[in-house]
């Protein structure tokens, strides 16, 4: 394949991929009071405004708390299931696995709508717990898939070796299994966190003014006023996600480095 053509193509595709993100970053620093590109001048006024505005800061806090709680909930439910499913060998294991993964293939809007009816019926309409339930439902598949892949990829004879060396099932789990699948749990947790942090459909229908998440707040803001505040809060959103990604990637790298050194 002609590398000149390839390079040209990658530049074009890269422009397409990055353009909408870069314009947001640029507009976040505009000095104007309206959205325009290129910005007529530069300032930090919109970032300052957004950081001081509870209409954005409270939803941001809500989003962080919800994402952490949803990821923890998904981990508590999905990790044990992944352990059992990876070992397999019981009737219906394949069916249970597809069932636990099925929220992935359903449009989030449909799930959101059904949950809205359901929570109203059982008297949880408008309650924060409803939001948490919805986000746990959509993050379970990510957690399950990542841990399953990790556990299926490791050499399970290490567990058998531990047993022949006299370890009880609990100690096998704590000292052998858990360290082996820890990268999977961390990666799955990160995935679940990001999915919840970015989720719109469920949050839009199940949250209230008080429990609105960041994407919902941004969406509401766009609906009523199209101003650079959206770009500023979006920039904060992008920055937070990037920092979280880098921090975990860095942590992962260090973790693996330490593990391999330990083995030698």
């Amino acid at each position, binding site marked *: 394949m002609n590398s000149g053509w390839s390079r040209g193509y990658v530049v074009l595709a890269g422009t397409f991929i990055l353009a909408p993100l870069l314009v947001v970053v640029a507009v976040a620093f505009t000095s104007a009071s309206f959205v325009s590109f290129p910005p007529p001048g530069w300032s930090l006024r919109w970032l300052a405004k957004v950081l001081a505005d509870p209409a954005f800061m409270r939803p941001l806090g809500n989003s962080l708390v919800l994402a952490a709680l949803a990821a923890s909930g998904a981990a508590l439910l999905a990790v044990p299931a992944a352990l059992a499913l990876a070992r397999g060998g019981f009737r219906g294991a394949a069916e249970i696995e597809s069932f636990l993964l099925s929220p992935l293939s359903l*449009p989030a809007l449909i799930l959101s709508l059904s949950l809205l009816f359901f929570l109203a*019926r059982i008297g949880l309409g408008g309650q924060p717990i409803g939001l948490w339930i919805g986000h746990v439902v959509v993050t379970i598949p990510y957690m399950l898939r990542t841990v399953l892949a990790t556990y299926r990829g490791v050499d399970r004879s290490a567990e058998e070796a531990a047993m022949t060396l006299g370890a009880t099932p609990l100690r096998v789990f704590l000292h052998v299994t858990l360290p082996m699948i820890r990268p999977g749990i961390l990666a799955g947790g990160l995935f679940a966190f990001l999915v919840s942090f970015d989720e719109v459909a469920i949050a839009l229908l199940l949250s209230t003014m008080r429990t609105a998440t960041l994407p919902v707040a941004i969406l509401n803001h766009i609906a009523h006023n*199209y101003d650079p505040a959206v770009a500023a809060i979006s920039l904060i959103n992008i920055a937070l996600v990037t920092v979280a990604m880098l921090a975990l990637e860095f942590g992962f790298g260090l973790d693996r480095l330490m593990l391999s050194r330990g083995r030698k």
Partner: protein
Amino acid sequence: MTSDRRRAGLLVAPAVLFLAGFFLGPLLLGVGVSLGHGPGGTPGFGQYTRLLGDSYYWEVARNTLGLAAAVTALTLAIGYPYALILTRAGGVAKTLLLLLVVAPLMVNVVVRTFGWMVVFGRAGLLNALLRGLGLPELDILNSWTAIAIALAHVLLPFMVLSIAATLEGLDPALGEAAATLGADPWRQFRHVLLPLSLHGAITGCLLVFALCMGSFVTPLVMGNNRTMVLAVLVYQQLTVTSDWAFAATLGLVLLALVLAVFWLQARLARRLAA
């Protein structure tokens, strides 16, 4: 043996019960609501006859499918060459290309849609470029074209990853074998790479198609009443009209369309595997 099975049961039970209660249960309830078993509804297929009898909803359904088809074609056109270049790259270039295509996934859909509004807006990037070139400005922010481009941007990673996964699994020696047998690069692609990557391309297309039908944030924010799709209509029935029974009905029609796409995918996959 029995205790092993019991332990497995105990381990999967919490997740299964949680999803049975908060995923399957609500869906079944949704079916019930659409059949008039909600507050203030009259049981029966009334909502469905209302839906099928009104040509407006048929038009919205056509719009939804048309938009999904256009977005799918767009992501395929952009994504296939990208996946090809990605799988052929090595080392750092490969990592960077992968990061480039996956990174937008980490940015929330609302933010990305806002980004396209800045690109297509009247005082946006596109018009700044057109002005610079001395061309007339465009007002396409609320158009199908703009929505399709923004959705293609949102869904491109799914297309690229589906195709790249298939290409990545191919033995690199296949193309070389074809070369030693007299096939020039175009014929290596035409007779070996293309047929073998078809599976990934079809998977990617159906995935993007299904995801596109379910997306409502981008058409909601960028569109107006002229550019109505099923998902946005569902949302409006819920929040504006508060007609739960009809929202449930529309939602289930959407779900049926999505499931039909997945069924088609499973069938094609089996056909290709045979």
